[in-house]
């Protein structure tokens, strides 16, 4: 078979909203995948010129480098507050935060809960890898019971450290929340579902329906001390049973009923 140049179609490439800077994530990490899904959604929905990202503190502290639209870097845990100030000042913008579990569920728990409760028209991309990666693998609010980290060397003991926080379950009954889903990025099938969830979250914001959050269970081979393949399996075997995947709240589904 002979092909002409005109027959060649570009079927895959870097999303326009993703910058060409190499990211600093470890091999096998899920943060980069999460970024890609956001960039794809922003491009697909034509939101790039209106999009403003808020980077947080942790492994994704340089998220502002990885996108090709406006970005601001926030203090640890405060990304939803910063996003609130942006959105209220520029209501026509599309504002999202990219936060890890320590940032969102520990030091930023109040900002997360109250921005959700106020129904801020923002999207939170919450990457849950059950560990503080950037600072060297300390126990996170989402670290599983028995899981060993550098500050829970014998495994997380709930009598001392409490139980892992389930963020979606915590937010699902708040009236201000429009869309809430937990996904994973450890298998191709999960990534495809995650892409849909991220896109839905941005659509919900664009339609002005309220606060949207997508919790992305992510593997952290470095922080977990596992090979990338083992880490991917570990998500299914250990994280998904405690953090069930699925839609926790969707006001558009309610409207349809």
């Amino acid at each position, binding site marked *: 078979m002979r092909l002409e140049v005109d027959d060649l179609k570009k079927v895959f490439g870097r999303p326009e909203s993703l910058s060409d800077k190499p990211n600093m994530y470890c091999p096998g990490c899920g943060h980069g995948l999460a970024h890609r899904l956001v960039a794809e959604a922003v491009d697909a929905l034509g939101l790039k010129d209106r999009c403003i990202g808020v980077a947080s503190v942790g492994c994704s502290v340089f998220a502002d480098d990885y996108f090709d639209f*406006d970005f*601001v870097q926030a*203090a640890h845990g405060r990304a939803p*507050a*910063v996003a609130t*100030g942006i959105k*209220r*000042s520029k209501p026509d913008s599309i504002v999202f935060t990219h936060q890890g579990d320590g940032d969102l569920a520990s030091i930023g728990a*109040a900002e997360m809960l109250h921005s959700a409760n106020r129904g801020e028209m923002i999207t939170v991309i919450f990457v849950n890898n059950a560990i503080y990666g950037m600072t060297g693998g300390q126990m996170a609010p989402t670290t599983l019971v028995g899981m060993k980290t550098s500050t829970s060397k014998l495994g997380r003991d709930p009598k001392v450290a409490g139980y892992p926080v389930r963020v979606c379950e915590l937010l699902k009954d708040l009236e201000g929340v429009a869309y809430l889903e937990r996904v994973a990025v450890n298998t191709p099938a999960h990534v495809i579902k995650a892409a849909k969830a991220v896109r839905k979250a941005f659509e919900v914001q664009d339609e002005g329906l309220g606060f949207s959050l997508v919790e992305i269970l992510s593997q952290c081979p470095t922080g977990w001390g596992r090979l990338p393949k083992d880490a991917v399996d570990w998500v299914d075997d250990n994280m998904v049973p405690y953090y069930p995947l699925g839609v926790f709240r969707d006001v558009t589904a309610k409207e349809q009923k």
Partner: protein
Amino acid sequence: MPEDRVLMKGNEAIGEAAIRAGCTFYAGYPITPQNELTEYMSYHMPKAGRAFVQAESEVAAINMVYGAAATGARAMTSSSGPGISLKQEGVSYMCGAELPCFYANIVRGGPGLGNIAPAQSDYFQATRGGGHGDYRVIVLAPSTVQELFDITMLGFELADKYRNPAMILGDGILGQMREPIVLREPVEYDPGTKGAWSLGNSAGREKHMITSVRLAPGTLEKHNMKLFRKYKEIAEKEQRYELTAVDDAEVIIIAYGTSARVAKSAVAAARESGDIRLGIIRLITLWPYPADIIREYADKGARFLVVEMSLGQMYEDALLSVAGKTDVSLLAHTGGGLPAEEEIIETAKKVRASDGPVEVFPEAAE
């Protein structure tokens, strides 16, 4: 009374001035004695088509201001001592990211929860930056309700001009006091060159990034030196003060805010009675500290008396300013205590009678 004169509470005057200065975003959290300001904004900001958010905490409020300022908006928050301590995180980030904002500290007695009486004990926190890192904020010290109004409008201008936070260091009396004031006309807020860095509507231009993180070796030192040059320029150009009866004064008082107000009455009373010839340098900026004018009078051999509602905090800057050329005395109150007119006159007479500096504290007065 002309029509544009109104009777206003200090806290409300700050709010009205902010709206007239073009402030489009306010976030606050309740704390006494600044509540009237948050209450005023909660009603008048939405009425003017601006954004008001009652934040979940002072930390959240200042970070909302960070976000709003990043879009080029004039943004503000306010609180009192304990809440201002919490806001230091956001203030440090805004200085690092070179974002302007305006905030008011209606100071109460500290440390800790302290009390809700007027105080000046947040002087160090205000004038030394307050949070972590090498930075400064512009600190303005009004002493009347009119000045709260005027200085709020000025504060937004200075913040924008230098891309740096500016603040009012007030106190519970100034916030709660009601006085007739003249309202200045609203300004047509011009974002000026903010479009070169602010966020939003990015079609057809390179992306904008606002950040305070600079990890690559040497980059933070370079950035901080840029900030330092800016602070030097502010220190040279923005020292503000008011002089009253200083030229023939036997003792020149240095004071700001409420203590300057009492001290001005003392100056008038002592001149009237012929007790002692007092004068006063009333500080309007606390950072930059009006060191040049103090140095000028120090060179002429003036003797100074610092009157403050904190235990010698502002005194240190006066001492630094005179650089050993003359003596500086201190009359200090703390924990909500106020200096009295007679007490100031008596202390000044002690200074006149003494060869060296005099220090008077509340215990000594008992």
